[in-house]
């Protein structure tokens, strides 16, 4: 089942490769939409068939390179299933949004289909090398998206920077994985075995080095301050769809790595250095929000709010490693909040990046000073953006609130000072989103009239509505009735917290 979900898009891409380039572009785009929709249906089926108390569901374990201790081991639990769902949903939204794409449609569709396989594969992987393979391929795929469909020549520099930067991270990760596997007898890369046996328990400095390598790799991908410098240029130069996937799915690979790999496999070391993660998280929250506040470029601003939002997740997973002054329930709440935040950020920021693509499509610039009073002309666009922005700043009734509320409640007992400082971040994000909304949508109507821009600044088209609105609707559903999501996450979060406190 999981293999079908993961490899269906790649097989579709292989099939599409045989179709001549000159075929009508609608053929490619509609195939993509259909494949993504089928994949989403399969994921929903897997979700319904998964029982949260089971641990890993839909597991498949086949030897791949047995002499190296590498296996094809996949499975889902409450930590990965929401992200698998998010990935499938976001890719479908991106597919619908891309209906108007005209540049090299065949390669574009194939690339995104392969990227979907890679992203899904990463979240279901239960083998470190399998995880690493998908981790690295996601970088390669995104490099080609940014370099090939970005905004002009500068996008190549941004893509190269993105590739180099995240590749350093991935290799640090690989060193950490090798360190983990060598400590186990027999050498194995199997995540479940490694989490159960924790081969590095009591190996002070060595375990510290392994955690350093793993955390460095994940921190670059997440990204946290001070490893975030690749993010703004990559986002600014990437096409809207690429940005949505980059922020919505690829960033989650870093945070997911913390809860899937770093915490359960190195529990003792994680507890020892938990404060470091809390501090890095809080710094990311405040720094990301402050820098976002200073941006005049709409897309760059959203990019920096991602740094802020990922900071909350780091705060929560760090707090889950501090045992003093708290109990298992609070720590489980923090982890649940962290996973909810990953889903929520994926939905809302994905939507925001797609909407910024609409802005660029109409006005050919992201500069907020070029626009004013758009609400009068484009009510749907303004409404959708406002909803996504409010969700992103944590307004009750939307998914961001559920996530951040749990993070703060769960982190407060163990990381009191850090949580208190991080709450200021909410204030800053509220300020920056309100400021942005005011600049873009209120005041006298004004939009760029440069050559090449469409004369009419039109509202959202059908395909844009069909891609953005479902994401926002899901954010509202999670904000109002989050049980369906939390029921899946909570048992896994409880298990993780027990593993960490061993």
């Amino acid at each position, binding site marked *: 089942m999981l293999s079908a979900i993961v490899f269906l898009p790649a097989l579709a891409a292989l099939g599409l490769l045989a179709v001549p380039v000159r075929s009508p572009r609608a053929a490619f785009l509609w195939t993509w939409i259909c494949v993504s929709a089928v994949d989403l249906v399969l994921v929903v089926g897997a979700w319904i068939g998964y029982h949260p108390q089971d641990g890993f569901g839909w597991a498949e374990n086949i*030897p*791949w*390179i*047995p*002499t*190296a201790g*590498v296996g094809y081991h996949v499975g889902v639990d409450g930590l990965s299933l929401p992200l698998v769902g998010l990935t499938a949903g976001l890719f479908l939204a991106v597919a619908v949004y891309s209906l108007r794409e005209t540049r090299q449609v065949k*390669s574009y569709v194939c690339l995104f289909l392969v990227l979907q396989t890679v992203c899904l594969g990463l979240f279901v992987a239960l083998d470190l*090398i399998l995880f*690493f*393979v998908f981790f*690295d*391929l996601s970088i*390669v795929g995104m490099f*080609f998206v940014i*370099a*090939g469909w970005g905004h002009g020549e500068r996008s*190549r520099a941004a*893509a*190269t920077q993105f*590739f*180099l930067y995240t*590749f*350093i991270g991935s*290799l*640090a990760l*690989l*060193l950490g994985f*090798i*360190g983990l*596997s*060598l400590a186990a007898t027999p*050498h194995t890369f199997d995540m479940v075995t490694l989490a159960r046996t924790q081969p590095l328990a009591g190996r002070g400095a060595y375990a510290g*080095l392994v955690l350093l390598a793993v955390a460095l790799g994940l921190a670059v991908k997440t990204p946290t301050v001070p490893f975030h410098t690749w993010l703004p240029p990559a986002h600014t130069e990437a096409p809207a769809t690429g940005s949505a996937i980059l922020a919505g799915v690829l960033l989650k690979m870093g945070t997911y790595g913390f809860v899937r790999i770093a915490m359960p496999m190195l529990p003792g070391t994680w507890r020892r250095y938990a404060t470091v993660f809390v501090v890095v998280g809080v710094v990311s929250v405040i720094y990301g929000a402050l820098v976002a506040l200073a941006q005049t470029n709409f897309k760059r601003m959203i990019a920096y709010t991602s740094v802020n939002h990922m900071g909350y997740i780091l705060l929560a997973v760090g707090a889950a490693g501090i045992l003093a002054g708290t109990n298992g329930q609070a720590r489980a709440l923090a982890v649940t909040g962290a996973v909810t935040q990953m889903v929520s950020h994926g939905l809302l920021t994905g939507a925001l990046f797609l909407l910024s693509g609409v802005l660029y499509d109409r006005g050919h610039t992201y500069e907020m000073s070029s626009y004013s009073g758009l609400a009068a002309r484009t009510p749907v666009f303004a409404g959708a953006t406002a909803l996504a922005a409010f969700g992103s700043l944590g307004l009750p009734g939307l998914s961001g609130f559920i996530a951040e509320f749990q993070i703060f409640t769960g982190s407060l007992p163990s990381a009191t000072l850090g949580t208190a400082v991080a709450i200021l971040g909410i204030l800053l994000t509220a300020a920056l989103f309100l400021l942005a909304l005011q600049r873009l949508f209120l005041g006298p109507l004004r939009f760029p009239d440069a050559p090449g821009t469409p004369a009419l600044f039109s509202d959202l088209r059908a395909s844009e509505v069909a891609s953005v609105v479902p994401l926002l609707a899901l954010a509202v559903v999670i904000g109002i009735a989050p049980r369906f999501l939390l029921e899946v996450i909570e048992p896994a979060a409880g298990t993780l917290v027990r593993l960490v406190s061993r």
Partner: protein
Amino acid sequence: MNERLGPLVPEIVLAAGSVVGLLSGSWLPRRRQWVVRLITAAACLAALAATGIAAAQAPTVDFGTSYVIDVATNTVRVTVLAATLLVVCLSIDAVAGHPRESEFYVLLQLAALGTIALAGANDLLLLFAAYLLASIPGYALAGFFKDALGTEAALKYYLMGALLGVAMLTGITLLYGVGRSTSYTVLRTALASAPHGVAAVGVVAVLAGLLFKAGGVPAHFWVPDVTDGTSTPVAAFVTTVPKIGGLAALLRLLTDAVPTNAVNWPLLVAILAAASMTLGNLAAFFQTSVKRLLAYSTVSQVGYLLMAVAVATRSGLGITSLLFYLLAYAATNLGAFAVVAELPQARSLSDYRGLARTHPGLAAVLVVCLLGLVGTPPTGVFLGKLEVFTATIDGGYGWLAAVAVANTVASLFYYLRWLGPLFLSQQTDSAAEPLQTTGGWPAIGAYTAGAASLTLGIAGGAVLPLLHGPLS
């Protein structure tokens, strides 16, 4: 005595193939010299088949203790023969109809034979004979087309090879002097009690020759000039095939003949590995010629390969990882060279602008091979690197693995400088059209090598167990 010819069938077939090729080439009219190409291919295929049979047998030692047939020899045989077949495929369009076409293929076979003998040699004198047999055809091949650049390349190659060959011979003399034998088996016990200083000098001098074959720092100066100056098929050959034999010989010499308590060679090799990958990468950074870039990239690859040699006795994974990396490296490097051979007009990185639109297949092979050389999954070199890094950390050289990781990231930079232009739109103003393909043969070679590189990564689980086994 154990002078059996049976285990040596692959080498004999190759030698017979070159003799038959030379003789028939002398009698064939020029337009029918392609027969020699067929003879070469048939010899390689027959030798491959013979190796397949030999690989199923237990490891043996032949001709006293001078020639060993074990997992290392068999892997080198397979790799060298398959690589030679690919090089033949790349050469067809370049040498077809050339007045000395048959000599070209004969020289290829002789060099391949020498390379295999390097890997099997278990005796210093045989090692030197193999060194000469692997080198001298290479010099002739480098200057084969008698153009100015090729002649210069051949001269540089020859001078460097002669100098380091003499150094190697000196080292052999010293080791013979203190060890009283040229057989590795005897040397192993004799060197332990020999004067350590002399033994160290001898080992270092022998290493000089083998590093020349491998193209590693500090014996790498010939690599960029020869690669850039000679024709692409020959460049592909000399940067891939001799390396395989050189590294296998290095592995056997150090692990079998030199006890680590006499000479601390693991540390020496580790330092050479770090130097090789770092200097190779630094020099490759701002190259604009694709062949020079590939040349320096092969220098840095030797560094990763030397890592595995450094930990060969310290980690159980060392030997297997080296053999697998050699296999994957040969396929990947030849794939990149095959694309270059298919586009003979495109000499600089910017000439590759727009390749993805005009020749998507070749661009795909180039992406697979260049990212493969970086070590991106799921290519063979990724699995090789994973094994090598694991062995290195397991062998206690964590710092070397960290250096290798830093270098891998650095290498990505110059490979991306090449890959970037592929996806841009083509220049329309220039009158010259650099992306003209030559005949179809190099393209077939490129697709084969690219597919092999990917297959080795995905189906590596089936190959790795075959490479396990002790050296004998």
